[in-house]
């Protein structure tokens, strides 16, 4: 696996993470995570539950600060940016959160049109048309007057996606876009990600542990395991990896080096951050 070199990104690199380290209460959740994403590419971040995928994403979008390492978005080093400095960049990307994160006091339509109302000077009629168009893209025509509490979890996620792409961003971050969706709908979301890439050259960073969709959409993949990058490369490279953990993850089998049941003591040690010796992967 080719780890991206240190230092600022080359041209054409939209997202770059360099040696990210993050600790929560003395527990190392991310350990030297590095990767980069070219313009128009789809990067998939994979890994088991709790391995730090969402944390990586939150660092990339500036909701969390890394303890060490650097992040570049659109060739700007955003590592130390505060909310105000981040404002201009945040208008250039969209985020789909793991739970959808809709505003419960607003209708579906108001949720999708919120960024349009706040960040553009468009006419109300135009905003309404864009809002309906985005809802149609996620298959929710006619849902604009419902409240988030009145729709299902999977629908909330699709509304969240419509909101994330409301401003036609150049870059979209997805936290588990297909978790909680039925197979048909998750295929629709995959198609949508590919469509955005093909038609509008939109760059995507997708967190998922859904293997089929990962291999379908990815140009590059990062596999995290216990906070470290276990594998990084094209889907073919990952598929042909001889790492048993990677293989077990791809095939989704219960037998293999990934412990499905850690001992209680080991788990408590991990929590306390004193498990220096991680489970041997060789």
């Amino acid at each position, binding site marked *: 696996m080719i780890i991206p070199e240190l230092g600022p990104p080359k041209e054409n690199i939209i997202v770059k993470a360099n040696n990210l380290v993050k600790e929560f209460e003395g527990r190392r959740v991310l350990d030297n995570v590095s990767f980069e994403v070219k313009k128009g590419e789809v990067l998939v971040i994979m890994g088991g539950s709790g391995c730090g995928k969402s944390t990586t994403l939150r660092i990339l*979008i*500036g909701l969390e600060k890394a303890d060490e390492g650097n992040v570049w978005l659109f060739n700007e080093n955003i590592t130390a940016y505060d909310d105000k400095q*981040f404002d201009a960049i945040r208008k250039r990307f969209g985020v789909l959160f793991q*739970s959808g*994160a809709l505003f419960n006091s607003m209708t579906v339509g108001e949720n999708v049109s919120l960024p349009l109302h*706040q960040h553009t000077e468009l006419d109300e009629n135009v905003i309404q048309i864009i809002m309906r168009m985005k809802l149609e893209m996620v298959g929710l025509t006619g849902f604009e007057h419902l409240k988030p509490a009145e729709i299902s979890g999977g629908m909330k996620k699709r509304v969240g996606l419509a909101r994330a792409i409301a401003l036609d961003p150049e870059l979209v971050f997805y936290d588990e876009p297909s978790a909680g969706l039925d197979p048909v709908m998750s295929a629709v979301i995959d198609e949508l990600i590919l469509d955005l890439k093909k038609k509008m050259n939109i760059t995507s960073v997708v967190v998922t542990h859904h293997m089929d969709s990962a291999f379908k959409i990815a140009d590059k993949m990062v596999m995290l395991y216990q906070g470290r990058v276990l594998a990084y490369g094209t889907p073919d490279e990952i598929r042909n990896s001889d790492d048993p953990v990677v293989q077990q993850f791809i095939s989704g089998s219960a037998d293999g080096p990934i412990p499905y049941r850690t001992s209680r003591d080991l788990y408590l040690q991990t929590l306390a951050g004193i498990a220096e010796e991680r489970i041997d992967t060789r």
Partner: protein
Amino acid sequence: MTNIRLPSILDPVAIIGKKFLDIIKLIGGVGLLLSDTFFWGIIAPLTGKFPDRKSIEKQLIDEGVNSVPIVGLLSFTVGLILAMQTSFNLEKLGAATYFPALVAVATVRELGPLISSIIISGRVGASIAAELGTMVVAEEIDALRSMSLHPVRFLVIPRVIALFIMLPCLAMLANVASIAGAFVFGASTLDMSFASFKQMAFEYMTDTDVWTGLLKAAVFSFLISGISCYNGLTVTGGAEGVGRATTRSVVFSIFAIIIADGIFTAVFYYLLKL
């Protein structure tokens, strides 16, 4: 390796110390939040970034109008009780008919603003903390920030402004309701006429009594909204954390109101001799 430690005689000191640090942290956090609020509420509008009118209107109704029945009813009852207590005790001095003066002054100076603020801590403070805390848990605050919409501007400002407008109004309502309670007592048991009640009540009450009371309510509104918004926005740990934040908001708001009331009373009536 294990860090099991035996209970020590110094534990209570550690607990008190930790509580003390908690309170310092809270004061610092609320202070920072309120200064951010003044930026978005006062400085930013000068540059053309106005807070959202619709959400302020919604909060005026939620926080203010919907609190009218409970504040009115409880203040009326307190006025009634106060009238019974004072007239009963004044009777021993042969001055039973002086109770309207006592009730009126005590109400506008102290009880009206204090009771309405405490009721609002429970009703509005708790709901602010629970609502914002739930938004934190559901990643809604993160979503706002990721869309470069500042949570203070979007969520805190409307709540702070609405309560600043509404709490003095509610305190005034409490004043009127409580004095009305006293009148109902006077009319029903002492056969007092409205005219004589009114004369008695207003003879000793001054404008200063009224406005110092309302000024206190305005200041208490910042304590309630600041503490509740801060506790809501700093929730960690899911639903349990929301519950904790709600309780903390109510307890700390009431605590802060009573301390502030003590300071005001000392300053107004002893230093400034108002």
